[in-house]
Protein backbone atom coordinates (compact mmCIF):
# COMPACT_ATOMS: atom_id res chain seq x y z
CA UNK A 1 0.00 0.00 0.00
CA UNK A 2 2.96 2.29 0.59
CA UNK A 3 3.82 1.92 -3.06
CA UNK A 4 1.15 4.44 -4.00
CA UNK A 5 2.38 6.95 -1.40
CA UNK A 6 5.98 6.58 -2.54
CA UNK A 7 4.95 7.01 -6.17
CA UNK A 8 2.87 10.07 -5.31
CA UNK A 9 5.67 11.74 -3.32
CA UNK A 10 8.12 10.80 -6.07
CA UNK A 11 5.85 12.48 -8.62
CA UNK A 12 5.64 15.59 -6.43
CA UNK A 13 9.42 15.89 -6.22
CA UNK A 14 9.84 15.17 -9.92
CA UNK A 15 7.32 17.83 -10.93
CA UNK A 16 8.85 20.32 -8.48
CA UNK A 17 12.34 19.75 -9.89
CA UNK A 18 10.93 20.01 -13.39
CA UNK A 19 9.23 23.28 -12.58
CA UNK A 20 12.47 24.81 -11.30
CA UNK A 21 14.75 23.22 -13.88
CA UNK A 22 12.84 24.75 -16.76
CA UNK A 23 13.88 27.91 -18.51
CA UNK A 24 10.61 28.39 -20.34
CA UNK A 25 8.51 30.23 -17.82
CA UNK A 26 5.17 29.12 -19.18
CA UNK A 27 6.12 25.47 -18.74
CA UNK A 28 7.40 26.18 -15.22
CA UNK A 29 4.07 27.69 -14.27
CA UNK A 30 2.03 24.88 -15.81
CA UNK A 31 4.13 22.40 -13.87
CA UNK A 32 3.48 24.35 -10.69
CA UNK A 33 -0.26 24.09 -11.35
CA UNK A 34 0.04 20.34 -11.90
CA UNK A 35 2.10 20.21 -8.72
CA UNK A 36 -0.82 21.82 -6.86
CA UNK A 37 -3.22 19.19 -8.13
CA UNK A 38 -0.92 16.39 -7.01
CA UNK A 39 -0.60 18.10 -3.63
CA UNK A 40 -4.39 17.92 -3.34
CA UNK A 41 -4.20 14.14 -3.81
CA UNK A 42 -1.50 13.99 -1.15
CA UNK A 43 -3.74 15.87 1.29
CA UNK A 44 -6.52 13.35 0.74
CA UNK A 45 -4.07 10.53 1.38
CA UNK A 46 -3.10 12.28 4.62
CA UNK A 47 -6.73 12.41 5.74
CA UNK A 48 -7.18 16.15 5.18
CA UNK A 49 -9.94 16.66 2.60
CA UNK A 50 -10.41 20.22 3.88
CA UNK A 51 -6.85 21.12 2.95
CA UNK A 52 -7.19 19.26 -0.34
CA UNK A 53 -10.09 21.48 -1.39
CA UNK A 54 -8.26 24.67 -0.48
CA UNK A 55 -5.08 23.47 -2.20
CA UNK A 56 -6.88 22.62 -5.45
CA UNK A 57 -8.73 25.93 -5.52
CA UNK A 58 -6.00 28.25 -4.23
CA UNK A 59 -2.71 26.42 -4.67
CA UNK A 60 -3.45 25.28 -8.19
CA UNK A 61 -6.26 27.60 -9.26
CA UNK A 62 -5.72 31.11 -7.95
CA UNK A 63 -1.92 30.89 -7.81
CA UNK A 64 -1.89 29.47 -11.32
CA UNK A 65 -4.09 32.25 -12.67
CA UNK A 66 -1.88 34.89 -11.03
CA UNK A 67 1.28 33.29 -12.40
CA UNK A 68 -0.05 32.88 -15.93
CA UNK A 69 -1.11 36.51 -15.89
CA UNK A 70 2.38 37.59 -14.81
CA UNK A 71 4.07 35.48 -17.49
CA UNK A 72 1.69 36.94 -20.06
CA UNK A 73 2.57 40.43 -18.86
CA UNK A 74 6.31 39.83 -19.20
CA UNK A 75 5.91 38.36 -22.68
CA UNK A 76 3.58 41.08 -23.86
CA UNK A 77 5.99 43.83 -22.91
CA UNK A 78 9.09 42.00 -24.06
CA UNK A 79 9.56 43.94 -27.31
CA UNK A 80 10.27 47.47 -26.01
CA UNK A 81 13.21 46.19 -23.99
CA UNK A 82 15.74 44.53 -26.25
CA UNK A 83 18.45 45.58 -23.78
CA UNK A 84 17.70 43.01 -21.11
CA UNK A 85 19.81 39.97 -21.93
CA UNK A 86 18.17 38.02 -19.16
CA UNK A 87 14.70 38.83 -20.42
CA UNK A 88 15.55 37.45 -23.82
CA UNK A 89 17.24 34.42 -22.40
CA UNK A 90 14.49 33.45 -20.03
CA UNK A 91 11.61 34.59 -22.14
CA UNK A 92 9.27 31.87 -23.08
CA UNK A 93 9.16 30.85 -26.74
Amino acid sequence: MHVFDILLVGMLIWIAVGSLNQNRLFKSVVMLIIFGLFMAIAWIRLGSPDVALAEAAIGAGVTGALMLDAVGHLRERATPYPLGPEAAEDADE
Partner: protein
Amino acid sequence: MSEHRHRTRLLPLTAAMLMLGVIGRAILALPTTGDGLAVPMRAGAEASGIPNVITAVLLDFRGYDTLLEIAVLMLATVAVLSLREDPAALSRRIAGGAGPVLGTLTRALAPIMLLVAGHLVLVGSSGPGGAFQGGAVLGAAGILLMLSGYARPAWASRRAVRWVLAVGLIVFIGVALYPLLSGGTLLQYPPENRKDLILLVEALLTLSIGASLVSLFLASASSTEGGGRR
Protein backbone atom coordinates in the same frame (compact mmCIF):
# COMPACT_ATOMS: atom_id res chain seq x y z
CA MET B 1 28.20 33.83 -17.71
CA SER B 2 28.11 30.12 -17.02
CA GLU B 3 31.18 30.25 -14.76
CA HIS B 4 29.46 32.92 -12.77
CA ARG B 5 26.42 30.72 -12.45
CA HIS B 6 28.39 27.74 -11.23
CA ARG B 7 30.03 29.82 -8.56
CA THR B 8 26.73 31.19 -7.33
CA ARG B 9 25.23 27.72 -7.08
CA LEU B 10 27.64 26.46 -4.45
CA LEU B 11 26.19 28.47 -1.57
CA PRO B 12 22.52 27.64 -2.28
CA LEU B 13 23.39 23.98 -2.67
CA THR B 14 25.20 23.96 0.67
CA ALA B 15 22.30 25.75 2.34
CA ALA B 16 19.76 23.30 0.93
CA MET B 17 21.79 20.24 1.97
CA LEU B 18 22.35 21.69 5.43
CA MET B 19 18.62 22.30 5.89
CA LEU B 20 17.83 18.80 4.68
CA GLY B 21 20.21 17.31 7.24
CA VAL B 22 18.92 19.45 10.08
CA ILE B 23 15.26 18.68 9.33
CA GLY B 24 15.97 14.99 8.79
CA ARG B 25 17.72 14.63 12.12
CA ALA B 26 14.91 16.45 13.93
CA ILE B 27 12.20 14.33 12.30
CA LEU B 28 13.88 11.00 12.89
CA ALA B 29 14.24 11.84 16.59
CA LEU B 30 10.46 12.11 16.99
CA PRO B 31 8.41 9.32 18.53
CA THR B 32 5.98 7.68 16.08
CA THR B 33 2.95 8.85 18.01
CA GLY B 34 2.14 12.33 19.19
CA ASP B 35 -1.28 13.77 19.83
CA GLY B 36 -0.49 17.47 19.97
CA LEU B 37 -3.66 19.31 20.88
CA ALA B 38 -5.95 16.89 19.04
CA VAL B 39 -7.66 15.50 22.13
CA PRO B 40 -8.66 18.76 23.87
CA MET B 41 -9.64 20.31 20.52
CA ARG B 42 -11.97 17.42 19.68
CA ALA B 43 -13.51 17.52 23.15
CA GLY B 44 -13.97 21.28 22.89
CA ALA B 45 -15.58 21.04 19.46
CA GLU B 46 -17.94 18.37 20.69
CA ALA B 47 -18.95 20.52 23.64
CA SER B 48 -19.70 23.39 21.24
CA GLY B 49 -21.80 21.15 19.02
CA ILE B 50 -19.61 21.63 15.95
CA PRO B 51 -18.78 18.20 14.51
CA ASN B 52 -16.08 19.44 12.10
CA VAL B 53 -13.15 20.06 14.43
CA ILE B 54 -11.22 22.09 11.85
CA THR B 55 -14.10 24.53 11.53
CA ALA B 56 -14.20 24.79 15.31
CA VAL B 57 -10.45 25.48 15.43
CA LEU B 58 -10.52 28.08 12.65
CA LEU B 59 -13.63 29.97 13.67
CA ASP B 60 -13.89 29.44 17.40
CA PHE B 61 -10.74 28.42 19.29
CA ARG B 62 -8.28 30.18 17.00
CA GLY B 63 -10.66 32.69 15.47
CA TYR B 64 -8.09 35.43 16.13
CA ASP B 65 -5.76 33.86 13.56
CA THR B 66 -8.63 33.91 11.09
CA LEU B 67 -9.37 37.58 11.81
CA LEU B 68 -5.75 38.45 11.01
CA GLU B 69 -5.96 36.14 7.99
CA ILE B 70 -8.81 38.17 6.52
CA ALA B 71 -6.66 41.22 7.20
CA VAL B 72 -3.80 39.59 5.23
CA LEU B 73 -6.11 39.07 2.24
CA MET B 74 -7.34 42.64 2.23
CA LEU B 75 -3.82 43.96 2.82
CA ALA B 76 -2.52 41.95 -0.14
CA THR B 77 -5.24 43.36 -2.38
CA VAL B 78 -4.42 46.90 -1.26
CA ALA B 79 -0.72 46.17 -1.76
CA VAL B 80 -1.26 44.89 -5.29
CA LEU B 81 -3.49 47.89 -6.08
CA SER B 82 -0.79 50.26 -4.86
CA LEU B 83 1.65 48.68 -7.31
CA ARG B 84 -0.55 49.32 -10.37
CA GLU B 85 0.89 51.73 -12.86
CA ASP B 86 -2.49 53.18 -13.74
CA PRO B 87 -5.14 54.57 -11.43
CA ALA B 88 -8.17 52.88 -12.97
CA ALA B 89 -7.13 49.52 -11.56
CA LEU B 90 -10.22 47.68 -10.45
CA SER B 91 -12.89 49.60 -12.25
CA ARG B 92 -11.54 48.66 -15.65
CA ARG B 93 -12.69 45.41 -17.05
CA ILE B 94 -10.49 42.58 -18.07
CA ALA B 95 -10.52 42.18 -21.80
CA GLY B 96 -12.96 39.38 -22.33
CA GLY B 97 -13.41 36.85 -25.06
CA ALA B 98 -12.47 33.39 -23.95
CA GLY B 99 -10.97 30.97 -26.40
CA PRO B 100 -13.21 28.05 -27.35
CA VAL B 101 -11.54 25.68 -24.90
CA LEU B 102 -11.70 27.94 -21.91
CA GLY B 103 -15.21 28.98 -22.81
CA THR B 104 -16.54 25.44 -22.88
CA LEU B 105 -14.61 24.60 -19.78
CA THR B 106 -16.02 27.56 -17.91
CA ARG B 107 -19.56 26.85 -19.02
CA ALA B 108 -19.23 23.36 -17.60
CA LEU B 109 -17.16 24.12 -14.53
CA ALA B 110 -18.42 27.39 -13.13
CA PRO B 111 -21.92 26.29 -12.10
CA ILE B 112 -20.49 23.14 -10.57
CA MET B 113 -17.94 25.15 -8.62
CA LEU B 114 -20.59 27.54 -7.35
CA LEU B 115 -22.66 24.57 -6.20
CA VAL B 116 -19.64 23.01 -4.55
CA ALA B 117 -18.86 26.27 -2.73
CA GLY B 118 -22.42 26.54 -1.43
CA HIS B 119 -22.44 22.93 -0.44
CA LEU B 120 -19.12 23.28 1.38
CA VAL B 121 -20.47 26.05 3.57
CA LEU B 122 -23.65 24.19 4.38
CA VAL B 123 -21.90 20.99 5.34
CA GLY B 124 -18.82 22.75 6.70
CA SER B 125 -19.85 22.30 10.30
CA SER B 126 -20.23 18.54 9.93
CA GLY B 127 -18.32 17.10 6.96
CA PRO B 128 -15.22 18.44 5.30
CA GLY B 129 -15.64 22.03 4.17
CA GLY B 130 -16.11 25.43 5.69
CA ALA B 131 -15.33 29.05 5.12
CA PHE B 132 -11.73 28.70 3.90
CA GLN B 133 -12.47 25.82 1.58
CA GLY B 134 -15.78 27.17 0.32
CA GLY B 135 -14.29 30.63 -0.10
CA ALA B 136 -11.36 29.20 -2.00
CA VAL B 137 -13.61 27.34 -4.43
CA LEU B 138 -15.88 30.37 -4.75
CA GLY B 139 -12.87 32.57 -5.49
CA ALA B 140 -11.53 30.16 -8.11
CA ALA B 141 -14.97 29.98 -9.76
CA GLY B 142 -15.18 33.76 -9.80
CA ILE B 143 -11.76 34.09 -11.40
CA LEU B 144 -12.71 31.54 -14.03
CA LEU B 145 -15.86 33.51 -14.84
CA MET B 146 -13.86 36.74 -15.12
CA LEU B 147 -11.24 35.13 -17.32
CA SER B 148 -13.74 33.70 -19.75
CA GLY B 149 -15.58 36.99 -19.98
CA TYR B 150 -18.88 35.62 -18.72
CA ALA B 151 -18.87 37.94 -15.77
CA ARG B 152 -17.21 41.29 -15.76
CA PRO B 153 -16.69 43.70 -12.93
CA ALA B 154 -18.57 46.76 -14.10
CA TRP B 155 -18.87 48.59 -10.86
CA ALA B 156 -20.44 51.96 -10.68
CA SER B 157 -17.76 53.97 -8.93
CA ARG B 158 -14.36 53.52 -7.35
CA ARG B 159 -15.93 54.27 -3.99
CA ALA B 160 -18.26 51.30 -4.42
CA VAL B 161 -15.33 49.09 -5.40
CA ARG B 162 -13.47 50.11 -2.28
CA TRP B 163 -16.45 49.24 -0.11
CA VAL B 164 -16.72 45.81 -1.70
CA LEU B 165 -13.08 45.16 -0.87
CA ALA B 166 -13.26 46.36 2.72
CA VAL B 167 -16.69 45.20 3.79
CA GLY B 168 -15.67 41.64 4.68
CA LEU B 169 -12.99 42.82 7.08
CA ILE B 170 -15.17 45.56 8.56
CA VAL B 171 -18.05 43.16 9.24
CA PHE B 172 -15.70 40.62 10.79
CA ILE B 173 -14.19 43.27 13.07
CA GLY B 174 -17.72 44.23 14.08
CA VAL B 175 -18.58 40.62 14.86
CA ALA B 176 -15.33 40.29 16.82
CA LEU B 177 -15.94 43.42 18.87
CA TYR B 178 -19.66 42.84 19.48
CA PRO B 179 -19.16 40.48 22.48
CA LEU B 180 -17.30 43.26 24.30
CA LEU B 181 -20.62 45.05 24.81
CA SER B 182 -21.99 42.19 26.86
CA GLY B 183 -18.88 41.59 28.93
CA GLY B 184 -17.29 38.93 26.74
CA THR B 185 -13.84 39.06 25.19
CA LEU B 186 -12.90 39.64 21.57
CA LEU B 187 -14.55 37.01 19.33
CA GLN B 188 -16.33 35.32 22.27
CA TYR B 189 -19.63 34.03 20.97
CA PRO B 190 -22.34 33.73 23.65
CA PRO B 191 -22.69 30.05 24.60
CA GLU B 192 -26.46 29.79 24.10
CA ASN B 193 -26.38 30.39 20.34
CA ARG B 194 -22.71 29.78 19.59
CA LYS B 195 -23.38 27.22 16.90
CA ASP B 196 -25.78 29.42 14.91
CA LEU B 197 -23.50 32.41 15.18
CA ILE B 198 -20.53 30.39 14.00
CA LEU B 199 -22.54 29.19 11.00
CA LEU B 200 -23.47 32.78 10.21
CA VAL B 201 -19.86 33.94 10.51
CA GLU B 202 -18.85 31.03 8.33
CA ALA B 203 -21.24 32.02 5.57
CA LEU B 204 -20.05 35.63 5.74
CA LEU B 205 -16.42 34.55 5.66
CA THR B 206 -16.98 32.28 2.67
CA LEU B 207 -18.31 35.21 0.68
CA SER B 208 -15.56 37.48 2.00
CA ILE B 209 -12.72 35.09 1.21
CA GLY B 210 -14.18 34.34 -2.21
CA ALA B 211 -14.57 38.04 -2.98
CA SER B 212 -11.05 38.80 -1.65
CA LEU B 213 -9.49 36.17 -3.89
CA VAL B 214 -11.35 37.48 -6.94
CA SER B 215 -10.36 41.07 -6.16
CA LEU B 216 -6.79 39.99 -5.50
CA PHE B 217 -6.76 38.58 -9.02
CA LEU B 218 -8.55 41.55 -10.56
CA ALA B 219 -6.22 43.97 -8.83
CA SER B 220 -3.21 42.21 -10.23
CA ALA B 221 -4.47 41.15 -13.67
CA SER B 222 -2.64 42.86 -16.50
CA SER B 223 -4.60 45.64 -18.04
CA THR B 224 -4.49 45.50 -21.79
CA GLU B 225 -5.13 41.88 -22.50
CA GLY B 226 -7.02 39.13 -20.75
CA GLY B 227 -4.34 38.06 -18.36
CA GLY B 228 -3.81 34.37 -17.99
CA ARG B 229 -5.36 33.46 -21.29
CA ARG B 230 -3.32 31.41 -23.64
